[in-house]
């Protein structure tokens, strides 16, 4: 698609038991793009995210981030390469405070034993905390930095997770259903916030079911169904694509006659 993609997947394949959850998936994310990855429930979107962030090893194919092959790297090294992600169900650390959760996102930025052993909230490390607080404020999260994350509203936690993912200075930010569970106002705010993020040069790849959010945020879309790529192109044309419509709404054929058709 693009001459200089930030991320390129070629023939990415993954099987669980007999089920092929990612079947020869190839696509590229153009540098600086805001791209959506959509598909019906169970299409393999989260699996693809897990493959890209290294939760599972690939059964075939390769993943190239900014010219470097990453699918053989351990999961923890990919964040330092510029790939950062959020999670479908909020995965904030329940016993860390808001600012500590955000500071965890800086972990990959720390270098050497000296950084590891510097207190992160006082002395020389105070800058880590100041930076995290600044980012929280810049994202419009008006909660006390030492508040307990468990007590915060869903929308706020969702946003904190995005800020945490941003703290690693990613080149590619992958968000797994960032708008799920948000009310329309929060969704609009999130969309505006992500556009600002993208304007700073961060490429976005977003899994999302809320299509109005996708239409608002993403100019490009890829669609998965049964682990296969079925559409790649502009978002505005996605609902006119016959294959996509069928993937979402099902085929129109059905046998309604009685009798047992069971497996």
């Amino acid at each position, binding site marked *: 698609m693009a001459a200089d993609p930030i991320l390129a997947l070629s023939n990415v394949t993954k099987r669980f038991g007999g089920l092929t959850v990612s079947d020869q998936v190839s696509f590229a994310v153009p540098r600086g793009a805001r791209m959506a990855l959509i598909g019906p*429930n169970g299409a393999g979107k989260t699996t693809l995210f897990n493959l890209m962030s290294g939760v599972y090893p690939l059964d075939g194919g390769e993943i190239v981030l900014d010219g470097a092959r990453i699918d053989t790297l351990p999961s923890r090294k990919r964040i330092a390469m510029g790939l950062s992600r959020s999670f479908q169900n909020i995965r904030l650390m329940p016993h860390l405070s808001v600012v500590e959760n955000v500071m965890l996102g800086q972990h990959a930025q720390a270098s050497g034993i000296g950084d590891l052993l510097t207190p992160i909230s006082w002395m020389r490390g105070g800058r880590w905390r100041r930076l995290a607080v600044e980012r929280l404020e810049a994202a419009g999260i008006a909660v006390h930095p030492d508040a307990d994350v468990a007590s915060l509203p869903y929308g706020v936690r969702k946003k904190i997770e995005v800020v945490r993912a941003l703290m690693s200075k990613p080149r590619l930010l992958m968000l797994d259903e960032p708008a*799920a569970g948000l009310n329309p106002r929060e969704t609009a705010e999130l969309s505006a916030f992500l556009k600002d993020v993208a304007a700073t040069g961060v490429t976005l790849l977003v899994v999302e079911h809320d*299509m109005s959010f996708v239409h608002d945020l993403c100019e490009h879309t890829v669609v998965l169904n049964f682990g296969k790529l079925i559409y790649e192109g502009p*978002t*505005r044309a996605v609902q006119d694509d016959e294959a996509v*419509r069928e993937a979402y709404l099902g*085929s129109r054929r*059905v046998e309604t006659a009685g009798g047992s058709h069971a*497996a």
Partner: protein
Amino acid sequence: MLLEVEGLDVRYGRTHAVRGVSLSVGQDEVVTVLGANGAGKTSLLRALQGMVPAAGGQIRFDGVDITRMSPPQRLQRHLALVPEGRQIMISLSVHENLLMGAYCRHDGGVARDVDGIYDRFPNLAARRHMPASVLSGGEQQMLAISRALLAKPRLMMLDEPSLGLSPLLVERLFGLLGSLRDEGLAILLVEQNTQMALEVASRGLVMELGSVVLQGPADDLRHNDRLAAAYLGHAAPAATPAAPLSSPPATPPSSNGRA
């Protein structure tokens, strides 16, 4: 009406997953609940079976208020749920899984009914003494449905039964649901395969963000553009609901501040 739900609310902490949903299912009727992921369909079913408490509203089954009953109590009143992801017990054999389906029954007909299941599903019969973990996805779904059938349900609720099945198996699954319907079983079906679900159902409801936004006869819903919009967004020219469709039921003002 067999199942009557009025103004049902479900909350997880501060998340309002189901907002004032009202619906009903008749004695021998198939009703389907449609909507994109995260619309609150699974939460609705879990609340109907009692796996999560209702934060508000009332559920009546066969004329009895079951809103505060535990899942086993609801099962004993013959309301059964086939959960999302099938939830087969992989350390139990196929046969034992079926017997667990009849756990709440105390009549003597279990053995006969299990044999009936084996007649219906020869694949399960052939694997009856194997651990359920060796079954394929389609067979597991058959086992999950059979397990629910052995509770002798009057209403069976299914949560995305076609998830993860190949198109051929999906077709067989809906064939089975069609024949169960023809045998007189009432079904409340949550599905993502919209067209198939609307073929087998007589009525449908569409949920968005926890509320029912559209409902009507299946035939009318099938050709409604608003339905496609619920899945694929509103960038397409917005269509006003077709004439025969009712607007969503008035929601209690306390539960829904959303436009």
